[in-house]
Structure formats: C-alpha cells, structure tokens
C-alpha cells in the first residue's frame, strides 16, 4: 500500500508539472501537442549540462549536479518551446502540425546531438547520457503515521520542488495580472487586443512557460525512471499529460487529480503483479489499469468538458 503511494507520487508529480505547462499554453489559446518534445529536449539539455560540468562521470557530485540539471532542463525546455511559439504565433502555422513536428524534431535533434557529444566526451557515439538516480529523503515523525505517512516517505528531492513550482504556477495563472490576461487570450483574443494588451506576446510567454515546466518534468523522469537520458525518455508521457489536462478540463486542480489517478493506478498495477507473484509478462496487463480507469471516469465526467473557446484558432487582427 505504501509503495503504491510512494511510487505513485513519484510518477504523478512530474506528469503533473508537464500537464500544468500544457494548461498554460492551451489556456492562452495555443494547442500544444508538443509536450512530449519539450520534456525530451529539456531533459536532454539538463543532461548535457551535467555532462559538460562533470566531464562524463557523475559520481561524487550527484546532488548539486541534480539541481543544475533541473535548472538547465527548465531553460532548455523554454528555449526549445520558442520554436513552437514562433511557428504558431508570428508564422501562423497550424498548431497541430507544429506540435507534431516539434516532437519529431526533438527526438531527431536530441538523438543526433547525444551521439555527437558522446563521441567527443567518451569516444563512443552512444545515445545515452548516464546520470544518477535522484536521491530520496524521508520526513521524520510524520512518516510513521499509517497511510498518511507514506506521502512523506522516500520522497525524491524533486517532489517538493514540483509542488512548490506548481503552487507558484497556480498563483500566476489564477491570481496574477499576467495570468488573467493569459486566460482571456484563450477565450476571446479580440477582447484582449481591444483592451490594449499584446496577445502575441502573452501567448509567446505562455508557450515558453509550458516548455520550461515540461523540461522540468522530463528531467525528473530521467532522474527517476531511467537514471539516464536516452531516446526512451519519449515514452508518451507528454501525451499522457495532455490526456490529464483534458480530463481536468484545463484546470490545475482537477488535473492534479487526473495525474494522481494515473500515478497511483500505475503503481498499484506493478504492486498487484508483484504480490500476486505473476510472471513479469502479466505486468503488461496491469499497466492498462490507469488508462481503463480514465476511460471509465470520462464516461461519467465528460458532459461538461469544454476547451478554451479560442483554442487552436490562429489569431488574425484583421478579422472582424
């Protein structure tokens, strides 16, 4: 039971921060299918910086390198997101195409550069940067409480970081001036324009934020699931995050719920397979649990599902 909570949180939180990134972009009116590409590129960028600073071997400096990686992952994600923003905003591209293209590009570019850099650093063109696993900590005292305590046990360092970032993001989106204008852009950009606000700039920043947050999430995945950066980072978590935010009706609170469901169901699946002593092949069947659960829940909760009104529409000042 505890393992479910621990592992579930460890997966749900990075997913959550990526989904929040998606919410920022989509609430401003820009369809964002590129979360997958952003998380990958952010993780790549963070990993590259770690390699650059440590010359290829991480041992001995895991913790400070970890935080360095996180910071650069955010930067890398935000920079790469500028591409999507450029395509969608001034270049008025079809936002769906742009998202898909960004994903393809991200996979291609990161694979290419990883093998090039590895050739330089270690002489072999491998497609992997080996990192370490993020360290965990346990809150003394509270962790002894049954059930509740599990939320405070074996927490990856990144989990509280994500929670703090998420709170800041929620504040920005719902309480700040910028957030208010951003959300208006996704409903009626003409109204925002008439109020004298620069719609293009607001959306651009929103997309960059989505890149930064996705990069953060991607880096956390790299440090927990695979302890490395490699092409396997593109496991579809970006699409899962999109499903989560659609399920959450483009609101941060319900999206957290969706991510927790995914995380706990996934962890529960693994646990179930283990306790039942099932052969490893069975773990595949268990893995479908979160997705089936989501579909069932959606059957009940999709009646009022409504996307931001101006989502995906290219904003044209001239149109009346």
């Amino acid at each position: 039971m505890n393992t479910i909570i621990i592992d579930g949180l460890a997966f749900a939180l990075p997913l959550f921060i990526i989904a929040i990134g998606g919410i920022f972009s989509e609430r401003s009116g820009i369809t964002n299918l590129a979360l997958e590409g952003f998380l990958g590129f952010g993780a790549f960028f963070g990993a590259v910086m770690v390699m650059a600073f440590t010359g290829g071997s991480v041992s001995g400096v895991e913790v400070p390198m970890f935080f360095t990686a996180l910071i650069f992952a955010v930067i890398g994600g935000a920079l790469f997101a500028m591409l999507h923003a450029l395509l969608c905003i001034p270049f008025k591209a079809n936002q769906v195409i742009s998202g898909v293209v960004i994903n393809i590009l991200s996979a291609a570019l990161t694979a290419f550069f990883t093998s090039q850099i590895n050739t330089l650093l270690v002489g072999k063109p491998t497609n992997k940067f080996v990192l370490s696993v993020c360290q965990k900590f346990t809150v003394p005292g509270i962790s002894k409480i049954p059930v509740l305590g599990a939320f405070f046990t074996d927490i990856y360092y990144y989990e509280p970081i994500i929670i703090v970032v998420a709170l800041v993001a929620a504040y920005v989106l719902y309480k700040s001036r910028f957030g208010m204008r951003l959300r208006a852009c996704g409903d009626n950009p003409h109204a925002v324009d008439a109020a004298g606000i620069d719609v293009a700039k607001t959306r651009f920043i929103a997309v960059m934020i989505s890149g930064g947050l996705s990069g953060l999430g991607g880096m956390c995945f790299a440090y927990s699931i695979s302890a490395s950066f490699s092409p396997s980072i593109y496991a579809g978590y970006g699409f899962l995050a999109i499903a989560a935010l659609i399920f959450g009706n483009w609101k941060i609170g319900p999206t957290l719920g969706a991510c927790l469901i995914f995380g706990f169901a996934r962890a529960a699946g693994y646990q179930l397979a283990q306790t039942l002593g099932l052969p490893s092949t069975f773990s595949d069947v268990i893995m479908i649990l979160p997705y089936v659960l989501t579909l069932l829940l959606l059957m009940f909760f999709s009646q009022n599902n409504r996307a931001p009104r101006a989502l995906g529409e290219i904003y044209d000042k001239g149109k009346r």
Partner: protein
Amino acid sequence: MKKTSSVNPFKRGFAAVLGNEKSQGITIPVFAILLSLVACAIIILALGKNPLTAFTSLLQGSGVLPKVTYAAKKSMFTDFMSMINEFTPMLFAALAVALALKTGLFNIGVSGQMLVAGFIATITVGYSKLPMAAALPLVLIIGIISGAAVGALIGWLKHRFNINEVVTSIMLNYIFEYLISYFINSYYINAISRQSQAISASASLTLANVALGGLKVDIPLGFILTIPVAFLVLFLLNRTRLGYELKVVGLNRRAAKYAGINVGRSLITSMALSGALAGLAGVTLYMGYYTSIQPRVLTSVGFDSIAVCLLGNMHPIGILFSSLLITVISKGGNYMSSIVGVPEEITEMITGLILLFSACGAFIRYRVSITKEEITEEKLRAKSAAAAEGGEKA
C-alpha cells in the same frame, strides 16, 4: 499619409508564382519543400559534406536514382520496391488521419488501431496454414474490420459521452500496446527474436525475396491497393452523399443538424472508416513490411502520418505525394549516412524541417496576400494619378 514606395520585383515574383489562390494548394507546399531542402543543404555544408552528394545518395538509397554498385542480386529496382514497401502503410495511415480530420475529428490513435489490426490478423490468418489465395484477402478483410471496430468505439464514446477523441485514442493506444504485448509475450513469443512468431509466408502481404530476372526483390502486394484506395477516399469525400455529410459535420455541426444530418451516426461512421484505413496500414506494416510484431512498441507511423497528412493538405492526391516524399527520405537515409558520412539522424531532421516549413504554409499565404494587396493599391494609385493628370489637361 502612407508611404508610396513601390513593390519590389522580388516580392512581385513571389506574388505571381504563389498568388493564384486556385493553385496555392500545390504551389505553397512545393515552395515549403524547396525552402527546407535549401535549409538542409546548409546544415550538410556546415557538417563539411557535399549537399548534392547527400541528396543524390538519398535518392539512390530509395531506388529513385541508380547507385554506383549493387550487392549481389540487388539493383535500383529492388531498392525502389523496398521503398514502396515502406510507403504503403504510411499512405494508408495518412489517409486515415485525413478522413477523420474532414469530419472535424482528430484520430491520434492510428498507431493503436494499426497494432490491433496487425495482431488480430496475425493470430488468425498469419499463423494458419491457409494458401495465399485465401489468406491474403482474409488478412485485408480482418485488418479492415478490426481497425473499423476500434474507430467506431472511439466515435461512439464521443457521441454518447462527449469524451474527447484525442483522450480516448491516447488511452486506447496504451491499452492496446500493453494488452497485445502481454498476449505476445505469453503465447506467441519467439525467444530468439524477442518478437512475435513470424507469420507464414503465404499470409504476408509482401512477397519477400522473390527471384525475378536475376534479382531478389520484395514485392509489396499491398501497394496495388494504395492508389485505388486514395482515389476511393477522394471519390467518397467529393462525390458521395456520405462525404458531403461528413464534411458538413466537420465544418458546422449546427448547420449539419439543420440539414437533417444524423451527427452522431456521421461521427461514428467517420471514425470507423478512418479506423478501417488504419487497419489497412496495420496489416501492410506488420504482415508485409515486417513479418512479426515487437511487443511494448507503438509504431511511430501513426504519429508521423499526421504530419504527412497535413503536408499533403489533407487531400488524398496530395497525401500520395507527401507520403512518397517522406518515405523516400526515410528509406534513403541509411544509404546516405554510409556514403556521405553524416549521422543517420539527419534524415529525421530533414523530415522535421520539411514539416516545419510546410507548417508555415498559412504564413506564406498570408505574406503573399499582403503583397498582392500592395500591388493592387499601387495600381489604383497609378490610375487615380493618371486620371487626375488627364483631368487637369482637359
């Protein structure tokens, strides 16, 4: 007062070539492709290699141009056939995306539908002892029906519960990936290849290693269907009542109701047809291009096909060409990297750049229309100036 600078000849040229609204559907994607080829050439130059050699080797690798030497029993024809083999599933997948898109639905679950179709056809016909004449049609039929069933399910969930089809598709992609992986690993695994047992040769849609005129060639039978199916989809959309209804639903739901169209039925039909096409893609991929299924992997064809569909402007004929282009690049990449010495990932970058530039199609159209307006304005001003002069003289 606005500045009265005249439109420079460079811009005029662009407007002339790209300005005709009727031909824009073709001229602008072509222009985008040319732009991206230039961009790729620059990158290749930066890597210290010759772009011309690179592009040539790309075409050679996919059998469009002849290579200098060939391995035994191989020729340009075999390379070309090999490329066509890869082209076939991509085309069907892109058509699947296009059909759904015309109804306003985004079928991001093509990969999952392909997997289901490929798997079911594999375990029913692929492992049977049926002779080719019976097996192949059966494979196609089962593939189409399986894909259609999944598509219909997605459409029904949308109609009945208003569940966003993007979410359903993503969920089903995962569910199928894991379920089928379980079944393969438990019952159909080949311990050596780590994939499902290979299907019998008589069930494969691609005739492998056929001895033909001194060569060993793969003949993708599925290809025979590609062009007819593309034209069929075109015919469906433009000339049939069903196509008319699907388009109205995609363009204006409320008007569709007003026109008396059963919207729910149209959504389900559209997704079912899209799924059927995805099913064709699935069987031509898993029982043609490949002869087994790798567990825990969802083919990227289903996602790349979205870009291919949009590159082809969602038009079946355009998709024929865009699928061809992307496949040529993908197939030739291996050869190009071995000949020229650029890393293989370059092909993905070229593809990515092409899609990038084509994504800017709307932007190019916009800039062209602005230039056209400037040209018209200039003409008007010239006219009124001439009239004023004429008036004064008189």
